[in-house]
């Protein structure tokens, strides 16, 4: 009983690399489609079902990260890999990815991965901020809580994501060049009125604190099971983290212990 072949989309402006990757992929029994730029890739993805996309970051025109974001907007279940290396490095990256269980056919739907994580409920979080550094910091914090947040650099991207993925919580920066935060939130609520939103009006550390508070309160609200269990799980998680950090420190790795215990601490 042969399983259906998975469709792999390779995107790279370098035709030579594209072809050698395509060869390798076909040997691993994928159906391979290729594109030399972002626009082509998006066109292909909108017309056919693509299960996996391997995209080069360094491309003229639309860069890899943007291509991936747009691809995911079209098809949220698509597994994607961004190639950040160069030359041989890049080839190695891509080959490893193909070999790794990351693309394990049994786990192709990210849904089951999420289920394996006993986190505080399975909610989709969208972060909107024109500052990529802040986006990354906040995103890291959320990842530690066991979620994979979606990110957008402006209102337009946010709305695109909103159109294809069910988002339960959106954290939006007020100060943005194109569409300001308030406008974005209004638009988001037009698409889905039940979405919980938080507008960030502060700056720098203030802003981060605001965002963190929003997350914590939103969690409590989300726990319909009575926030007792949510609270309980939070305590367990905190104990787990502290003991893991203590374990690392005891056996000699204090740097990492501190990083585990307090991930937002600035490096000395």
């Amino acid at each position: 009983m042969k399983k259906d072949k998975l469709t792999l989309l390779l995107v790279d402006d370098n035709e030579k690399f594209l072809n050698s990757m395509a060869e390798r992929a076909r040997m691993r029994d994928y159906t391979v489609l290729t594109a030399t730029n972002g626009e082509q890739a998006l066109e292909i993805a909108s017309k056919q079902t693509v299960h996996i996309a391997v995209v080069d970051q360094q491309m003229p025109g639309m860069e890899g990260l943007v291509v991936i974001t747009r691809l995911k907007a079209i098809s949220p279940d698509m597994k994607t890999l961004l190639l950040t290396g160069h030359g041989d490095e890049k080839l190695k990256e891509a080959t490893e990815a193909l070999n790794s269980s990351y693309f394990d056919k049994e786990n192709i739907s990210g849904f089951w991965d999420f289920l394996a994580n006993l986190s505080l409920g399975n909610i989709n979080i969208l972060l909107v901020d024109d500052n990529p550094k802040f986006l990354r910091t906040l995103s890291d914090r959320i990842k530690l809580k066991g979620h994979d947040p979606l990110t957008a650099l402006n209102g337009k991207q946010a709305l695109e994501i909103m159109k294809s993925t069910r988002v339960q919580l959106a954290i939006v920066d007020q100060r943005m060049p194109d569409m300001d935060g308030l406008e974005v939130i209004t638009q988001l609520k037009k698409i889905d009125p039940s979405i919980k939103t938080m507008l960030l009006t502060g700056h720098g550390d203030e802003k981060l604190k605001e965002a963190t508070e929003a997350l914590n309160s939103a969690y409590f609200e989300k726990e319909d099971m009575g926030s007792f269990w949510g609270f309980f799980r939070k305590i367990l998680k905190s104990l787990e983290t502290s003991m893991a950090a203590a374990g690392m420190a005891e056996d000699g790795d204090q740097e990492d212990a501190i990083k585990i215990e307090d991930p937002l601490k600035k490096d000395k």
Partner: protein
Amino acid sequence: MLNKFFNTMNRLIFSSMVLVLTSPLGAFAADQAATGGGDKPWWFWPSILFVFCFVLGVLAVMAGVGGAVLYVPLVSGFFPFHIDFVRGVGLMVALAGALAAGPGLLRRNLANLRLALPVALIASAFSVVGAVIGLRLSALDPNIIQACLGATIVGIAALLIFSKNSEKPVVTKQDAIGMALGLNGLYWDEGARESVEWKTHRTLLGLFMFILIGLLAGMFGLGAGWANVPVLNLMMGVPLKVSVATSKFLLSITDTSAAWIYMNQGCVIPLIGIPSIVGLMLGSLLGVKLLAVAKPKMIRYLVILMLLFSGLKALDKGLGLGLLG
């Protein structure tokens, strides 16, 4: 300000440790240990033990020396309990700490299961052997165990002073066994923001070392972090972060088997066991919070010194030299 509080706490702990070492209190405790301390109310020693373990937990985290290796020598040196019970409870304490640390490390993919499993199998099998031998020896004459423990502890203290861990060891070629077992991996280096690949070498030698580690852990009721990490890191070439996390995780397996042996022999007395376990865990929790604000270097030397002292004391007691009271 919170910082000031932590700084004063730091100094308090530091100075109190100095006091305990040098003051007549230490001598008193040792004296009590010698006479069996039977003239005190039943809650006296367990209460002191609880506080002692709490402080130990804080120090262990801040000094980077496992509470699991500090417990047996220190408690057997300062408290009136027989080495059998100290080892039994010591294993339980080490086990509890390792089991509590495990989930966080597994979830962050820091502890590597693939590396841990074969190593743990060897270590846990031999810790059973070590436990059985250890109990037979202490039944024969507890001084044998005291002396051996003392010598081992002195060795451990030396190891802790002199061994330099390697953050990212360079492994050029993986050996056959390592490849057969698939001992390699990828972890995320938060600091450098890059994913780091690693693989092992000298795997067979490393696996043999774990025979010895298991034996020692079982015989003396010690948690073997001080040995696991150098073997994984320096000998087998596993990056430090993964070594430490995997070591802690595999401790939980090694100590489980030895703990069962001691427990089945009746060496785990609840009166002593529970304050020790709970005390140490609470201490670790505090220690981790303090770690971010305190300067651990001094504490590390102090703790290693304490360990050395207790090792010499055990050696002295075991050999009946009576030099250290």
